[in-house]
């Protein structure tokens, strides 16, 4: 009896937490298909429409260019950050260089600095370089944000790989770079995949730097959402449609790599 009660309480708590977490997302998805007049209604009885998605892609919102900016900035950031971070992580994991721990801490410590403190120096720097409102500037900033984090993540995965296979490959005739390519990277693949996804999500959702450093040409999706706060008030149905556009790619990606994601997490946690 007591066991059943505790089981029921546990389930009830889980349902409650799920409702709290999922309600805003469900509300966003529903609102995306509502007409403006139904946006504030909590009723599920409304006439669904796809018009909001059409509207956000047309003038003056032009979500298409923002999608393109977000895709390019996030993809290029991942494409540069992950290979560089993997090599750095390998070095930190395998080479016993003097000052290694301090250097690693130094790299991690960049994550302790509040973004709002460094956004102004970044703004001044890019203005000086005439790079404001460019995707290139956003990629550089995102690289600075995510690379230390990805180094730290991938190092955890590489640490968990025994060195025997690497040494065997070196004796078999492989150079250090070949060992990394043929042996370490395939063995660390789940971890690298996980880190890439984290990297992509961080960049995809990055808001503050994109808000300050972009104006018209390099605006990304999260910043684009702000534009739905107009003089006419907050256009929730359009904001929700744009929100769906931001969420869905990440959602699909997470579903697709869920297996790697879990394996990677476990592998990194072991050591």
């Amino acid at each position, binding site marked *: 009896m007591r066991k059943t009660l505790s089981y029921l309480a546990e389930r009830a708590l889980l349902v409650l937490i799920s409702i709290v977490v999922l309600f805003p997302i469900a509300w966003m998805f529903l609102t995306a298909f509502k007409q403006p007049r139904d946006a504030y209604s909590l009723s599920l009885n409304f006439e669904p429409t796809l018009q909001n998605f059409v509207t956000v892609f047309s003038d003056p919102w032009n979500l298409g260019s923002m999608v393109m900016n977000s895709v390019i900035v996030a993809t290029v950031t991942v494409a540069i950050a992950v290979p560089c971070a993997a090599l750095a992580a390998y070095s930190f994991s395998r080479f016993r260089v003097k000052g290694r721990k301090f250097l690693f801490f130094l790299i991690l410590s960049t994550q302790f600095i509040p973004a709002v403190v460094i956004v102004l120096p970044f703004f001044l720097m890019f203005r000086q370089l005439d790079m404001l409102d460019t995707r290139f500037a956003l990629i550089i900033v995102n690289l600075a944000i995510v690379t230390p984090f990805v180094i730290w993540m991938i190092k955890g995965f590489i640490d968990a790989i*025994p060195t*025997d*296979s690497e*040494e*065997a*490959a*070196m*004796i*078999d*005739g*492989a*150079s250090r770079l*070949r060992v990394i390519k*043929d*042996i370490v990277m*395939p*063995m660390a*693949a789940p971890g690298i995949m996980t880190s890439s996804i984290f990297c992509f999500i961080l960049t995809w959702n990055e808001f503050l730097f994109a808000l300050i450093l972009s104006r018209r040409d390099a605006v990304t999706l999260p910043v684009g959402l702000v534009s739905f706060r107009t003089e006419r008030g907050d256009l929730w149905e359009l904001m929700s449609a744009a929100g769906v556009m931001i969420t869905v790619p990440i959602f699909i990606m997470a579903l697709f790599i869920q297996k790697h994601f879990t394996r990677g997490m476990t592998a990194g946690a072991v050591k």
Partner: protein
Amino acid sequence: MAEVRLVDIEKKYGNFLAVPKQSLTIHDGEFLVLLGPSGCGKTTTMRMIAGLEDITSGDIMIKGERINDKPPKDRDIAMVFQNYGLYPHMTVRQNIEYPLKLRGMPKADRKDRVRETAEKVELDALLERRPSELSGGQRQRVALARAIVRTPSIFLMDEPLSNLDAKLRVTMRAELKHLHHELGVTTVYVTHDQMEAMTLANRVAVMREGKIVQLDTPKKIYAEPADLFVAGFIGSPSMNLIDGAVKDGVFRADGVEVPVDLADHDGVVLGIRPEELDITQDPGAAISGKLYALELTGESTLVTLRNGPSSVCARGHADFEADIDSPCHLAPKEGARIHLFDRATGERLL
């Protein structure tokens, strides 16, 4: 095939001296075993030969050429690791093929060579499996196949059988011995298992605290251990080592009186192997005490008797039976080798 020479090699980790300065020559085609307890520097020595550890000072010569600065890939060696060191994301075929691929061998030749090697270690039916789908013994065979596939000048084997169960270890030991006979490649083998050392080696280097304390054939090391450490380390069950003193040509300890050819000496350890003792009914025998334990091993019975702090083991007939705590007497067999060591220094006295 090649001769390996270690000339005054030394290895330090900061201030810690892992391998003190020493030299060693491994002859062409020889099977040399580095034997010693954990942490004695045997794996470090092997890793220095492989190029996986830098040497602090000294030279390593292979085929007369100094190879100190050559990376592992250019030393023409193959190594079998304790944990196999297989590539888990590759199939057995790809694992075996990898060293050939790195050396740019054409695909068709590689295929033939992999097949031949796999047949040699009876892996031909498992070529498309991944290491995770293999048993410990099969994985060990893959590691072996990968080592022999390109016929290197030197084989290095770092406790390759230590992860296998006892039965499989015996089987694989015989296979390694046969393989060495067949290929004749110079082999350096690291182990802490004296049985492996005795059965496999042409010569054994017994190591302690980084130093080679005795380098000789297994037979010689067994018969004439250089010091107390070697005497206690080699043999199963190990040599009986009894603390006592020599006076008037007799070694004396509690319940032990053995005539020896040594001048008076305090602090002496007498060593005699269990198989060189006879169990006797004679109360005046050299060693007397109470029966402490009987252990049937199948082909014989190990008889342990105790007298004070001394405990002496003899190998008796499989049918031997007696009551625990009953008086028991042992006598050295005719022509038995009696070893005497200085207790303080461990040096051999006789």
